[in-house]
């Protein structure tokens, strides 16, 4: 009887402890969630205020929606409105990269999974190597190449280099190998299907999830890419938004008082608005594509 009572009281104590632990865990999870959104919240709110208000008012205070318009108008004073060009450049470069990278990677993955071409293993290994070697080891060699072939300061230089998408090719290979049975290709071949049609009539219609994952990773990898365009595109009219934002850092007194006074009204709200242009599309795509992120990354490590 005594034993039973002791055991029951131990269980009750354990339950109580686990409730307390559960509460603490949830409190920590919640705290980290709040902390995670504060920087983005600051950036979204900063353009609603005037420069002085960023220091004088509460950091997370809201100014007015007109602040966004004012900040945009001020940005247009910079270098004859080159900001519009940066926005457009970011859009069209990224769109081209997403399209070319997705298409070439999907084709490569399909061919490797469905064909018996020689050097498949070498090809697969070189794709994995390119995927794992940090791009920084290749950037200077790529610069030298671009200089030699006359693609320096040409957007197509950046677009083509960034369209090499080994992670995408590997994901496609995994996807096609695990989703489409070889027998399906064989049956189609017996029915007279050409190799092109195997891709367009069988692989593509079954590739919806793959294409969206490929486009997602290509977009998030390139919209805010800095290193490559910074090196290959020296003219300001060819800049993307991140490079333009960096340019604002060192050519206006917004963040760097050493620049001294200028007649161009670009201060912290204007820089923050540029930051919103860079970060918000990525944030939206991330929030809409959480499942793609998880599925793509898990599939990229091993085949389920």
């Amino acid at each position, binding site marked *: 009887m005594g034993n039973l009572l002791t055991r029951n009281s131990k269980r009750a104590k354990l339950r109580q402890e686990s409730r307390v632990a559960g509460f603490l865990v949830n409190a920590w999870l919640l705290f980290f969630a709040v902390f995670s959104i504060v920087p*983005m919240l600051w950036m979204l709110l900063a353009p609603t205020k005037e420069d002085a208000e960023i220091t004088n008012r509460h950091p997370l205070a809201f100014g007015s929606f007109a602040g966004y318009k004012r900040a945009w108008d001020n940005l247009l004073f910079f270098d004859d409105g080159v900001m519009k060009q940066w926005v457009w450049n970011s859009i069209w470069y990224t769109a081209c990269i997403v399209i070319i990278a997705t298409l070439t990677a999907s084709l490569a993955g399909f061919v490797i999974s469905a064909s018996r071409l020689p050097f498949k293993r070498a090809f697969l290994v070189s794709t994995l190597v390119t995927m794992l070697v940090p791009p920084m080891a290749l950037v200077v060699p790529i610069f030298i190449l671009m200089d030699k072939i006359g693609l320096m300061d040409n957007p197509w230089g950046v677009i083509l280099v960034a*369209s090499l998408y080994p992670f995408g090719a590997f994901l496609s290979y995994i996807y096609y190998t695990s989703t489409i049975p070889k027998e399906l290709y064989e049956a189609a071949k017996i029915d007279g299907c050409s190799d092109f049609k195997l891709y367009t009539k069988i692989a593509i219609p079954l590739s919806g999830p793959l294409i969206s994952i490929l486009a997602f990773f290509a977009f998030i990898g390139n919209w805010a890419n800095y290193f490559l365009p910074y090196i290959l595109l020296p003219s300001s009219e060819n800049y993307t938004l991140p490079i333009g934002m960096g340019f604002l850092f060192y050519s206006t007194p917004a963040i760097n008082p*050493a620049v001294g006074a200028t007649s161009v009204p670009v201060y912290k709200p204007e820089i923050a608005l540029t930051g919103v242009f860079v970060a918000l599309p990525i944030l939206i795509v991330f929030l809409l594509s959480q499942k793609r*992120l998880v599925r793509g990354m898990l599939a990229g490590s091993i085949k389920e």
Partner: protein
Amino acid sequence: MKRATLGSNRAMWLMLTPYLVLLLTFGIIPVVMAVFEVPHESRTNPDGGWDAFKIVLSDFRLLPAVINVLGFIAIYVPITIMFVILMSLMLDLNPSNWKKYLRMSYIVPAAISGPVAVLVWYIIFSPTMSPLKDVLSKFGITKSEDVWQTKNLVFLFAIMAFFNIAGNWILIQYGSLQTISYEIIEAARVDGCTPFQLARRIKLPMIKKYIVYMGVLIGAGGLQLFVEPQLLNTGVYVGIAESWSLDQLAFELAFTNGDFGGAAALSLILLIPTLAGALLVIFKTDMFEEAEVSRKKGQE
């Protein structure tokens, strides 16, 4: 018997060509060109030749840059991995519907990278503008310069990189935990496993491959450090992070000193360990092995 689908025909080669051209042109040819660039004459290597390697290795900026990058990796990689594992295990303790909003919040900082990260963290550590100014004042930080010092950069860049990537990986590892079958977890619970034992003995061993994969990608990404020190150095506090990272040093050699031979030599020096690391991961770990299995099956 020859399979009907698997002819080595022209159409397949044609479909592979666009990717193959990109891989050759921007993955392999630049490396070959870099090798040929090394012996060119430059200001630091006036006679030309392979001494460029020796000159780069004895450059006074190289060792500090290596120490900076290794220090950054030593802080950022283990902390990120441990934090991600802990957070995903915590999220997996009692999954409930409201926690999906927490997971959404965690990926918000993933949108803050490069110049945006420099701006945001400059503000966060500014005692007059920061949303955390009360916390900063408790630590006795009264001006931004208390934080933004060369000796603190390794921690500051680690913080930036951590917040940029942790949320994504929490989500991914939480996803990997969901691949463990419910029956296994239930059986362990019935056998009296505590949540801690469940995590240590069941969950972590079952997602080990994903954890290794995360470690490899986070480690490889850690070598890539350019935007933050470069922008900080040129646009915020001039001179604070001069040649701070290896990327910056390669950039400076090439574009400030005009020493492309030296920059190419440095790129090749960096390429060798990263290439060796990549090959080690591919051939000596069980990562990607399932892909190899599926490839072999395809050949049968």
